[in-house]
């Protein structure tokens, strides 16, 4: 039961980056296309799940004082691994995400989960937490990327989806559009969650 709860909370109550307003930079930077959003989300999920796992395994062994430092090393190792793997097997995505792959290491969501959840919970729960939050993040980024891709280039996952004479709203794929779009989504989330009775 609680595994399910830990897993599903990442899809609404703690959906990053909308609920936990963290990890904004990749959210804004790579979501010019749904595909990039998906890639970024998956890379982040990879790091999140494995760092949660390892932190949970080691949680009894690591002394409090070097806690943060150890977590950073663990997270950074998986980030480097993700970098190398992307480079080796998904090169276009590696290029598209650019500097934001190494920056996964400072994504506050990951350190936040390690510190707030994995360091206090058993392995299974930590995995569920990491997977849930990671997939929530992935979905958010993919949706945001999808919206921006459709409006900003008339495509979705690279396929034309608008009518032929549609002129894309290039604003959406530029930096200002990223902020504005995320702002509007946050506002809409507020409206929706207000309609949904809190439980």
């Amino acid at each position: 039961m609680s595994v399910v709860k830990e897993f599903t909370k990442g899809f609404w109550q703690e959906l990053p980056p909308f609920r936990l307003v963290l990890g904004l930079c990749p959210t804004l930077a790579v979501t010019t296309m749904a595909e990039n959003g998906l890639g970024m989300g998956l890379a982040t999920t990879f790091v999140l799940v494995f760092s949660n796992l390892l932190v949970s395994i080691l949680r009894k062994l690591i002394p409090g004082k070097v806690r943060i430092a150890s977590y950073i090393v663990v997270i950074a190792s998986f980030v480097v691994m993700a970098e190398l793997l992307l480079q080796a097997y998904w090169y276009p995505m590696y290029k598209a995400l650019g500097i934001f792959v190494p920056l996964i290491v400072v994504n506050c969501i990951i350190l936040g989960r390690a510190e707030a959840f994995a360091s206090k919970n058993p392995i299974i729960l930590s995995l569920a937490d990491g997977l849930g939050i990671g997939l929530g993040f992935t979905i958010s980024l993919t949706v945001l990327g999808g919206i921006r891709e459709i409006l900003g280039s008339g495509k979705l996952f690279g396929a034309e989806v608008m009518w032929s004479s549609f002129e894309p709203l290039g604003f959406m794929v530029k930096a200002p559009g990223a902020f504005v779009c995320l702002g509007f989504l946050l506002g809409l989330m507020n409206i929706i969650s207000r309609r949904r009775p809190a439980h």
Partner: protein
Amino acid sequence: MGDYLLLIVSAILVSNIVLARYLGNCPFLGVSQKMDTAVGMGMAVIFVVTLAGMITWVVQYAILNPLGLEYLRTIAFILVIASLVQLVEMFLQKSVPALYKALGIFLPLITTNCAVLGIAIINIQEEFNFMQTVVFSFASAVGFSLAMVLLASLRERFPTARIPSAFAGMPIAMITVGLLALAFLGFTGLTG
């Protein structure tokens, strides 16, 4: 000399670290509600980013490259930055308590600020020499602070504006950053 001027203009205005390069958004949006905190954070970022830029440059060219460990850049840089922030914090606390009081609470926030790591990585990717690294790191951090102060001054007006309640707070701040970025597009081309 002219090259450095262009580097500075580019880092502050044309490719502003937050408004165009999407780095450091979490503290940017998190700490810009009030002017005084924005200024404090800005100062802390200028200080740490410049220092971190220099040290990571040395780490890259004096340690990683000779040893063929370029692939460990991310892990090395983040450790350097985290320790640097710790040291700065301890140093300030002991030696310049006044400054520590002003900047202290912002320092821990900086470790997980992707602007710091981001600028350090850009310095290497752009293959800047040491002097360029110093100038670029400093100017980027100044650009960060400038954007932060502007956003804070705009946000200070929001509590008394009739913003629809669903948009009050983070959403409108985000939209405002968007419009700020839109305005900054006006600098496009200045350095080219």
